[in-house]
């Protein structure tokens, strides 16, 4: 995923002289080609994220298109107030890329996990919050973000995430992508957890349920039009994210759900609980620790649908 980003950035940066890449002292070799393609437009800002965000604001005020990149907790929560004031208050077109989001760096310890970043950035006025699912969505979201007139946060995985889409999807910020069309159960997925959700969909098919699967690369603004249109045919709606249940994608859907007075449908949220993961685990086991598995998703949604059918 990060390689897809680096390759796309190099191609775009070579042509678009406004693009300036800021790195928080990571990914140095990864950006060698960008440095060649865009001389003078790569800045290693060191391990100094507060300054990096202010600097990005200054570049944007000069009409440039800065793209700031480092590990997710450090480019979001470390410098949250800089993001709020320098980027959001001024409504500047700066792109923030967080790498290894969610549990992507599960083995590195909770300092490197990011299960609160969506909650934090979603609360900031003017900020667009995105979480592409695969390398193809990364390309699509990044291209759309470069055309946005607002700050954009893109939370991406690390390395080796499989392609779900065959091609770069035709994507507009704020719109979901229907991956699979069914009925009964609707699985709304954001970010790199999409393959797990598709696996859950296969398990549901084995149980006689043909679920709809939607990838939601944009969390804010939320594609409420799409979700609303799915409610009549889907008594059970689930949100799945590699992020805390407090304030994340599921919360965003839940807020809209309450505000629009949805009744008759059931909403089930999958995400991490109110705790730090303090034991070393692989990514799949870290997800399982928080109940984010294909089996759990299939079980809980099928049971909810069964309950409703029985009622």
């Amino acid at each position, binding site marked *: 995923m990060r390689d897809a980003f680096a390759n796309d950035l190099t191609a775009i940066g070579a042509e678009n002289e406004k693009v*300036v890449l800021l790195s928080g002292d990571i990914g140095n070799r990864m950006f060698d080609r960008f440095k060649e393609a865009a001389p*003078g*437009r790569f*800045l290693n*800002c*060191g391990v*100094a994220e*507060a*300054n*990096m*965000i*202010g*600097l*990005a*604001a*200054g*570049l*944007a*005020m*000069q*009409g*440039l298109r*800065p793209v700031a990149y480092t590990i997710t907790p450090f480019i979001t929560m470390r410098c949250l*107030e*800089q993001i709020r*004031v*320098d980027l959001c*208050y*001024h*409504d500047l077109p700066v792109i923030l890329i967080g790498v290894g989001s969610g549990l992507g760096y599960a083995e590195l310890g909770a300092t490197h996990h990011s299960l609160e970043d969506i909650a934090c950035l979603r609360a900031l006025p003017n900020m667009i919050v995105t979480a592409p699912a695969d390398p193809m969505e990364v390309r699509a979201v990044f291209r759309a973000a470069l055309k946005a007139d607002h700050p954009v946060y893109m939370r991406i995985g690390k390395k080796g995430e499989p392609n779900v889409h065959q091609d770069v999807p035709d994507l507009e910020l704020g719109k979901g992508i229907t991956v699979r069309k069914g009925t009964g159960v609707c699985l709304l997925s954001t970010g790199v957890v999409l393959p797990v959700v598709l696996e859950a969909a296969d398990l549901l098919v084995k149980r006689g349920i043909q679920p709809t699967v939607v990838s939601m690369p944009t969390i804010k603004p939320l594609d409420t039009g799409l979700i609303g249109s799915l409610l009549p045919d889907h008594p059970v709606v689930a949100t799945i994210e590699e992020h805390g249940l407090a304030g994340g994608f599921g919360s965003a859907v839940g807020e809209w759900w309450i505000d629009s007075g949805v009744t008759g449908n059931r909403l089930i949220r999958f995400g991490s609980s109110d705790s730090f993961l303090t034991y070393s685990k692989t990514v799949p086991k870290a997800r399982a620790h928080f109940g984010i598995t294909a089996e759990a998703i299939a079980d809980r949604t099928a049971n909810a649908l069964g309950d409703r059918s029985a009622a």
Partner: protein
Amino acid sequence: MSATASASPSAGPLGAGPLDLTVDEMEATARRVRGRIIQMSHGAGAHHLGSCLSCVDILITLYWRALRIDPASPEAPDRDRLILSKGHAAAALYAVLSARGFFEDAVLDTYNGDGSKLMEHPTPGLAGVEAATGSLGHGLPISLGLALGARIKGKDTRVFTVMSDGECNEGSNWEAAMMAPAQSLSNLTAVVDFNKWQATGRSREVLALDPLVDKWRAFGWAAEEIDGHDMAALSQHLAAKAGDDRPRVFIAHTIKGRGVSFMEDDNNWHYRLPKAEDVEAAERELGLR
């Protein structure tokens, strides 16, 4: 009466000023600006009067002698930039911007009023305000980006930041202080309004601020101490471009509450509001009555 018409000040409204003021005329403008700030604080019930009065001479010198700007064209892409990082001195910035011709003097009367763009800390979208500040430690990193952006775009633009000594508490400044020399940003100049106070104590005592000029030198800046109320010296230093490839910082020794004897170096005026009789006494001292 125009702010520039005479060296003898009056309490009348401020007008637009040209760039060719003598030092005497700039000092007269400074007295009028100080009087206006005190009126604004009184009228609006807005704090930070002492912090405003300490940086008036620095701001006037920058706006009249250093910055290449056109108040009629505040968004001109190639303009020089000034960020008031000590955003709590917004009233000083507003009064100086108005005196320099960015907006009418009457606009100052809306300060802190319902629906006004003149909030107690600078807001985006007001002519002449380059960045919203008020949260400390933001101006220098943004200025660094402006200076780098100018270089990337091949512009011969200068960028100035006016910050407070108390603000030097913020770690983000020292992140920026390490990066600016690494990028050889000689188009960046910081001015520290060293009035020796922060909100609740002596800035030398709250945190270990001294030796301030040596700290900046150690970080790789061309650092000099100057008298922040000597407009002739300020003009000479701030108008001149850098002599080498280092960013520059001036540690400007100032007096909090400068210009009004009963406010000078009295930190109560960080939060105290002037009563009508205080305004009158101050105007008398400033020669405005």
